[in-house]
Structure formats: C-alpha cells, structure tokens
C-alpha cells in the first residue's frame, strides 16, 4: 500500500483547486487506515470530483476518476473507471476502461471497454472487447480487431481534445510504497 498524500505530485501549473482532495484521502491524514485498505480489497485510487488535472496521468494500480482530467491517461495494466461525475478530455490507455461519466477522446484498452448506462464516449475505441449498455452515448469508431496501440493505417486519429502540454503539468501516480 502506498501513502496517499504522496500519490499525486503536481510538478507545476497544477490546476487542482485549493482545498480539493482525493476522495479516499482526508486532508488531515497522511495514509489511509488499515481498515480502509481492507475494505477496498485491492488497490484502487479515487480522484474526487473537485479535482481537476491537466497533463499526463500514469499509474500502476486501478483508478477511479470522479473529477476532471485533460491530457493523457495511461494505466496500461490496470482498470480505469470514470465515475458518474468524471469528465475526461484525454487520450486514454488502460487494460480495461469502465465509463459511467463522460470521456471525450480516443481510447485504447488491451482487454475491454465498457460504457454503462448514462456513460458517454466521444472518440475512437480500440479494444478487443467493447460493451455498450442501453442508455449509453457513443460517437466514434470501434476497432475490435487490431492489437492495442497500433496506429490505424491511412487514417489520422481524430483529435478529440487538445491535450495539455506535458511539460506544463506532469502528474504521476506513484508506485505503491513497499511495506
């Protein structure tokens, strides 16, 4: 398990409003209680709905976003969940993506993309499995054949968003601290 107060380190230009915090992390505590860890069952990080991140988000554990992210999200070996309040304007790379909120940008998943009722994706999806629930919104293309990460020949990827410059803000989700 890792120290949640060190989980996200904005280097510069962080647009996170003052007072915002990750959902699972009270501002006054330095690390989650053992009970909280046990309750979660596995490593899942929540980004609260008041958090706004512009830049690149990398991680090595499952992540739930209820806030706003603009730029690029890479969770190549983990599950990314966009909560009902989450608003993403980013290129997303993940093992699996579950969308209950809004995603505006291209998505590449090595296992599965799931857009649930009320979820919305505007962008192109590359994933071997795609599940779109009734009541979900989707606009874009679905490519279930190509291996993830390979570019589409003769076709430019749709510039769904204007990604924020990486140098401006580089937000990294740190590796779990070894116990």
């Amino acid at each position: 398990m890792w120290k949640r107060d060190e989980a996200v380190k904005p280097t510069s230009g962080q647009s996170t409003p003052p007072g915002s915090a990750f959902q699972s992390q009270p501002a006054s505590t330095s690390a989650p209680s053992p009970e909280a860890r046990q309750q979660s069952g596995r490593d899942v990080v929540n980004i609260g709905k008041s958090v706004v991140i512009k830049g690149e988000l990398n991680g090595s554990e499952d992540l739930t976003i209820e806030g706003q992210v603009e730029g690029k999200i890479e969770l190549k070996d983990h599950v990314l969940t966009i909560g009902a309040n989450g608003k993403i304007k980013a290129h997303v790379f993940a093992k699996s993506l579950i969308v209950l909120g809004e995603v505006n940008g291209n998505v590449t998943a090595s296992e599965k993309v799931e857009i649930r009722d009320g979820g919305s994706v505007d962008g192109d999806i590359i994933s071997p499995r795609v599940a779109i629930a009734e009541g979900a919104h989707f606009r874009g293309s679905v490519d279930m054949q190509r291996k993830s990460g390979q570019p589409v020949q003769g076709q430019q990827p749709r510039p769904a968003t204007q990604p924020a410059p990486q140098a401006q803000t580089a937000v990294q989700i740190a590796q779990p601290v070894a116990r």
Partner: protein
Amino acid sequence: MAFSDLFARLRKDEDDADAGADSPAQPTKVLARFLAGLGTRQQPVLLDLGPVVGSNVTFFGEEVGCKILVEDLSKDIDRHVSQAKVGDLPAFFDTRFPQESESIDGILCWDIFDYLERAAAERLSRQLTRVLRPDGVLLAFFSTADPRSAIRPSYTRHVVIDRDHLRYRPYKAARAKQRPLLNRDIQRLLEPLRITENVLLKTNLREVLFRKPAAASVAPSAAPQADR
C-alpha cells in the same frame, strides 16, 4: 397512492414501451446479402447511422470483423427539431461526415430516410455515395405505411439477432416519419448506387440493398470539416 408515485409509474410504463425489449424477432431478407457484400476484406469499415446498440457493435465487430463507425443521425434530427432548425438539415449534412471519399465498405442507414424531407434526404444521400467505396454496399429500410397512423413519433433501434433476424425496439422521437417514398423515388434518391435487392416485408417495411458500381466512383476530394 400519491400523485408523484402514480406519475412515476406511468413514466416507467412509457419508458418500458419505448425500450421494446420483448418485441418479437423479425425476419430480414437483406442483412445477410449486405454482409456478404462487404466482400473478403480483412477488416471492412462499416458506417452505422442508427443509435448505438451494444450487441450490434459486438456482432459486427467480433463476428463479422468490421471496424464500426457510429454516427447517430436520429440525435442530430432531434436536435434540429428541438431548436426549430429542421430547415438547416440539408446544409448540416453537407458537413456532417468527416470520412474520406470512398473510405467506407458498408453503410447501415436503417430507416433514417423516413424521417427526412426530400432536400435533406438528397444531401444525405450525396454524402453517403461520396464516402462509399466502389463496390461498397448500403442497406436502407423504407416504410410504406402512412406515417399518420402512428400514435406518437418514434425511432427504431434495429438490434441484430443474427444474419436473418432483427429486433425492432422503438423509442421516443421528436419527429415523425415523413411521407413514404415510392420505388422510383428511392432509386433516384441514391443514384448512382444500384439497387441489388428490394424486398417488401409483411410488416410494410421495404428493405433495399444498394451497391455502388465500380464506374461510379467519385473523384476523391478532401472531406469537409465535421461539425463535431
């Protein structure tokens, strides 16, 4: 029972009726031909103009091996109706499709033409014939019934069960179907595409399969900017 509960129950009943989950499977004579017409390309590109249906994405993506582009035109029509800008639809269609010319192997129009007036239908068909590659196929359904018989306007989700069966799932629309097109109007509407199958079902639905002749290829031009 409180009024709020009563209204909530009524609303739920309406929603259930919209979903049409238990509607019977309807035979389709043309879908199998459409799929065969996609040819032997390794990954044909399919343009779906209907609302997104998860099981269709799975069917076309996994079973048929297509790359699917979803462009739900019913939402565009509803938006224009709600903004009282139906007259802008023809011009809207001119810039609606960002796809390059002759880049699509198959187009699923479903019954979208039923909801368009002549001018808008013509502009839409012009764009569809532009993006369809030579020898590509286009599937469209045309109602032959009087649209005034409908109690309330509805679109239809066409859920693919298998190559020979569909399930129609109606849902609420802001616009009713327009006057049905005659056979010759359908033929002219999508020229230079050629009709290869034309089947009138017992449900008063006409299933039509078009193919773009190789000689009718449009000179490639830069796709207009999409209004995204």
